């Protein structure tokens, strides 16, 4: 099995876990786990854009008041349930972004001519975003992007990248991916109703 296929399967399980998770605390834990996975696989994490996303979606959700009124801004009530629901949705969105980073870090190859074209697009997009800080600000933008692309082209020959993408998963990779899936299952068990019955403080979590 190709390593990228294995990563895709593992990512699909994580997405399933994300969709099935309903409580805010469980989704928060899964989000943290996914961010760790993405960082471990060489993806950058910026706190500020995620915080902005979290706050904006949470507040956008308060447009439809729901549950206990926490406070009011003029005549606009901020309700607890609407805020919690908003945070839940924001976490889901953030998780999806990092799951896609995690899946794409294996340089996923879609079969066929169109698949190769899409893979190439992902490759250039990845290279451009990771090297964007190198862009010369004083140069006109088109010329600067052009220089950056020429640099990428010289640095990595496309044919070489295509060859290295076709690596196969070894036993160790399968064990690692199974471990990732088992952590998601473990998180579900930790936040299950049975655990809440045993540890009463767990029931207080949102």
């Amino acid at each position, binding site marked *: 099995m190709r390593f990228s296929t294995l990563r895709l399967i593992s990512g699909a399980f994580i997405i399933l876990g994300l*969709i099935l998770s309903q409580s805010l605390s469980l989704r928060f834990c899964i989000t943290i786990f996914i961010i760790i996975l993405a960082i471990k696989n060489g993806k950058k994490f910026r706190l500020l854009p995620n915080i902005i996303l979290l706050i904006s979606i949470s507040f956008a959700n308060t*447009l*439809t008041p729901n549950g206990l009124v926490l406070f009011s801004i003029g005549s606009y009530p901020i309700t607890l349930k609407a805020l919690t629901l908003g945070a839940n*949705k924001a976490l*889901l*969105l953030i998780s999806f972004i990092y799951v896609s980073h995690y899946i794409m870090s294996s340089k996923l190859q879609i079969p066929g001519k*169109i698949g190769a*074209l899409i893979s*190439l697009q992902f490759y250039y997009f990845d290279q451009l975003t990771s090297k964007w800080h190198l862009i010369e600000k004083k140069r006109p933008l*088109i*010329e600067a*992007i*052009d220089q950056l*692309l*020429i640099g990428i*082209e010289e640095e990595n020959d*496309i044919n070489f990248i295509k060859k290295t993408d076709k690596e196969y998963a070894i036993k160790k990779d399968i064990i690692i991916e199974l471990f990732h899936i088992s952590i998601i299952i473990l998180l579900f068990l930790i936040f299950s109703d049975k655990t809440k019955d045993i540890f009463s403080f767990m029931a207080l979590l949102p």
Partner: protein
Amino acid sequence: MLIIYTVFKDNVSRIGISLGGAFASTITQLFISRIILFKEATYVIAPLFLFSGLISSIILGIFANEFIHKSIWYAQLKGKNV
């Protein structure tokens, strides 16, 4: 975008291709948003979302036109026939 380019070839501008891509992308995002994130509230943000997609895709199309005319990298790539 690929479908538009394959069907219309040189009869469609890069702005047209960009518009088609933005429309497909926005519709997909709204669809996912409708199912997973915002449910019914998606219809509230849809007009704004479609309009911003329209504007940004026109700007992107103009930029793509400029880039293709000026880029050495693109000319080299076309020469290699990648």
